[in-house]
């Protein structure tokens, strides 16, 4: 069992989470007509053997989206933070208080 250190709930079994995939993918602006950019974002992946930044949602917990750094060969989890930059900043401000 993987244990994901949810920044909101603490370490939890990965069975409480669902997996979305590569967190480094960014879509073009919604009104972009750049076919190549859409193709790359929708279909192409780095698929590394080693460190991978990926999105998980804590569906059976706080329901937050997390960006997790995990090794795809050893399954070791390096870090987990809120996926949304705003939430991440708010969390950092909260813990700094």
């Amino acid at each position, binding site marked *: *069992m*993987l244990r994901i250190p949810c920044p909101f709930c603490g370490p939890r*079994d*990965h*069975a409480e989470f*669902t*997996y979305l*995939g*590569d967190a480094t993918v960014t879509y073009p602006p919604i009104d972009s007509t750049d*076919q*190549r950019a859409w*193709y*790359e974002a*929708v*279909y*192409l*992946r*780095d*698929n*590394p*053997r080693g460190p*991978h930044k*990926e999105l998980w949602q804590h569906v059976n917990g706080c329901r937050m989206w997390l960006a997790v750094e*995990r090794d*795809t*060969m*050893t*399954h070791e989890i390096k870090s987990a933070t809120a996926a949304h930059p705003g939430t991440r900043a708010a969390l950092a401000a909260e813990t700094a208080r």
Partner: protein
Amino acid sequence: MNRYSWFSVLKEGLTGHKGWPRAWRDPEPKPAYDAIVVGGGGHGLSTAYYLARNHGMRNIAVLEKGYLGGGNVGRNTTIVRSNYMLPYSTQFYEFSLKLWENLSHELNYNVMFSQRGQIGLFHSPAARDAAARRANTMRLNDIEAELLSREQLMTMIPHLDYSASARFPILGGILQRRAGTARHDAVAWGYARAADRLGVDLIQNCEVTGILRQGNRVTGVETTRGTILAPKVGLAVAGNTTLLTDMAGLGRMPIESHKLQAFVSEPLKPLLDYVVAFALPGGHFYISQSDKGGLVFGGDLDMYNSYAQKGNLPVVEDVAGCAMALMPCLGRVRLLRHWSGVMDMSMDGSHIISKTAVEGLYLNTGWCYGGFKATPASGWCFASTMAKDEPHELTAAFSLDRFERGLAIDEKGQGPTPNLH
């Protein structure tokens, strides 16, 4: 090297089985070949066999980093069928099934292909409609299919849970009688032996570590056993695809590597005559009984990207739950082994057999859960693509550039989510 026959079995039986020669040679790699196939799984070995048999290419080699058949071909649940929906897939898999039907004779090796029939169960009126539509689609493609009622199923597979309290109430099933199972190791070994007999060098413990290019042409490969030159290189490395395409500088791929687990129970007396499967939100399961009596079964992926050939516990629990929901009589049966393989999951759930942007470099990947049944046709079409440097008509639609051209082949209609195909 001798042919296997009833006569050779009889002769060896009477003389203490001392005269069996080894099944294939263990050659040193030559400095150069006319073509190289990377990956000694089912697809690499069948490709090499058909390159030699159909296209007369004898100065060729298969390079395998471990041992022949140690990858997914030796790890799968061995289901062979051709009950697809989209025309490209239907024609490709039906061609494959026809090759399976003669494979033991073709290879002079008993691959134990058993056309025991595969039954997909349905559990709701909507799923019954979907099954009827699938059966009609198959019939329109000249592939026989039957819809089974709950009563028919009760006589054919009496051990399923037909009770009123069943977790997934069984309404009926769709049957393809010509579907079945084969002995997976024997498929790898049969193709290996037959290719070796045609002069193909099968080189094990030989990991490809680099792909050599001169401008836009491939010229050979770097391996742990030295440099080997060839004007044509075909990649058939399943879950390791991205590592090899990165070496060739092909850019990012529409592929993610995921792991799939499989399970086998202790041997039991004959219990289950068919391959039985079901898929619905909340459960995905397939089971058959091997000739040794073990129940062979599996379910979903572990869902997260992985190159580790080891599975995780939530899927074990999930699959055990599905097994109990379907056949409560399995409750006291012990698990003998369970393992995992690294899958080449593609963005549309279909495979890729294709030329690439690099001349002389060919790609065979994206088999998801279902590449074992494709083994003969994949080798046939990939060999043709490599030998003629043009797509085979059965796999032209499965090109690498289909995603960019908006021509994805998405059987499930799942969208670009590799782990859900």
